[in-house]
């Protein structure tokens, strides 16, 4: 269960947001909305523990994530703007590294099926640099297919560069993961409905001046 308590975030001297409180339990979906520059990505990075809050705290099961550190990060799957893909490695190698960093080994077969699920199984052994931006995003998101054990997904603009079919696949993955009782936080500019029991939304409003 992820909790933000009186969260404040500043970039340079500007305060992006302050006094932000929310509680996200398993089986709930949270969408962070807001204009460009309103601090959506900063909020996600705060929730991951990449960024230290200027005020307040982020808690996971009641414990501050800055103290949990590796314990929290072991359970979290974060996919940011950047795809975290190495051009010189193949799609399968990239996926294997991502899972290893997440702390669990994956058999070759599972890698192939995850990539299949995202529709890029065919280019498993081709170096990532020859893939299109959309395909590379699919490789990054293929990690979700191997992260069903993770109780918390934090996804920064997961749908960017994806075509309609890929959006449906990812939408469905998020919905089924939430249905399994996990929590998912995501940001997107694509207006779409993800069929889940409880869908929360936080709007950070206009860009911080």
């Amino acid at each position, binding site marked *: 269960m992820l909790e933000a308590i009186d969260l404040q975030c500043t970039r340079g001297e500007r305060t992006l947001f302050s006094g932000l409180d929310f509680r996200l339990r398993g089986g709930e979906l949270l969408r962070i909305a807001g204009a460009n520059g309103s601090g959506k990505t900063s909020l996600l990075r705060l929730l*991951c*523990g*990449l*960024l*230290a809050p200027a005020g307040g705290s982020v808690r996971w099961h009641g414990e501050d994530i800055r103290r949990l550190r*590796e314990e929290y*990060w*072991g359970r*979290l799957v*974060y996919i*940011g*703007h*950047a*795809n*975290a*893909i*190495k*051009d*010189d*490695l193949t799609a399968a*190698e990239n996926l294997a*590294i*991502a899972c*290893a*960093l*997440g*702390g*669990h*080994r994956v058999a070759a077969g599972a890698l192939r099926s995850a990539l299949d699920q995202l529709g890029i199984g065919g280019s498993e052994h081709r170096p990532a640099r020859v893939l299109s931006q959309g395909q590379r995003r699919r490789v990054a998101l293929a990690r979700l297919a191997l992260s069903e054990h993770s109780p918390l997904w934090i996804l920064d603009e997961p749908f960017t560069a994806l075509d309609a079919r890929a959006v449906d696949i990812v939408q469905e993955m998020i919905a089924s993961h939430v249905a399994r009782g996990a929590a998912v936080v995501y940001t997107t500019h694509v207006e779409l409905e993800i069929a889940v029991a409880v869908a929360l939304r936080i709007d950070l409003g206009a860009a911080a001046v």
Partner: protein
Amino acid sequence: MLETAVFVIRRDLLLAMRRRSDVLTVLLFFVIVVSLFPLGVGPEPALLRTIAPGVIWVAALLASMLALSRVFAQDYADGTLEQMLLSASPLSVIVAGKVLAHWLMTGLPLVLLAPVLALQFDVPQNFLGELMLSLLLGTPALSLIGTIGAALTLGLRGGGALVALLVLPLYIPVLIIGAGALDAAAAGLGAGAHLLLLGAFLVMAAAFAPWVAAVALRIALE
């Protein structure tokens, strides 16, 4: 935990093998810098013999520093570094893995190449052992300290020169002890004391540098 580090080491070595040119440029830089000195100082063997340890050590130091920016820069640019910060295993272990991979690609080749260059400086054969041993202990310490500089200056303007300014003062003890080892050997005193000191320095650097670099990385990626 170590599993992840082994994974990172294999990944970095795999990446290096796929882009061998980066590794070669560092080695060629080392060879060229060492070969410049006789051209500048003159070919008399006696003189070359005395300056050989210093020249080889300074060149090794500059070569390993040149390669430093590559430890994190590429990972920072494509987002993999962010994933390392969010890994289930401690960041310092991952950083230690990356430093080891970095040293295997840039430090170890220098150690193997140095004796060949030493012959250019008419260094007697029986000192080649000391030379290799001192570099074998010294270059990993240089890579470890250098990684802290690379982490602190991640994504900053003035990259290479800034890292040099940060890291060179910290390299000085290693340079003094390392180059001194060969002078002591040449003077017949034996390089034992120096090599032990270098070993002690390496152990201290190995214990603290990965952790400090991890702290610096978290600061850089805030």
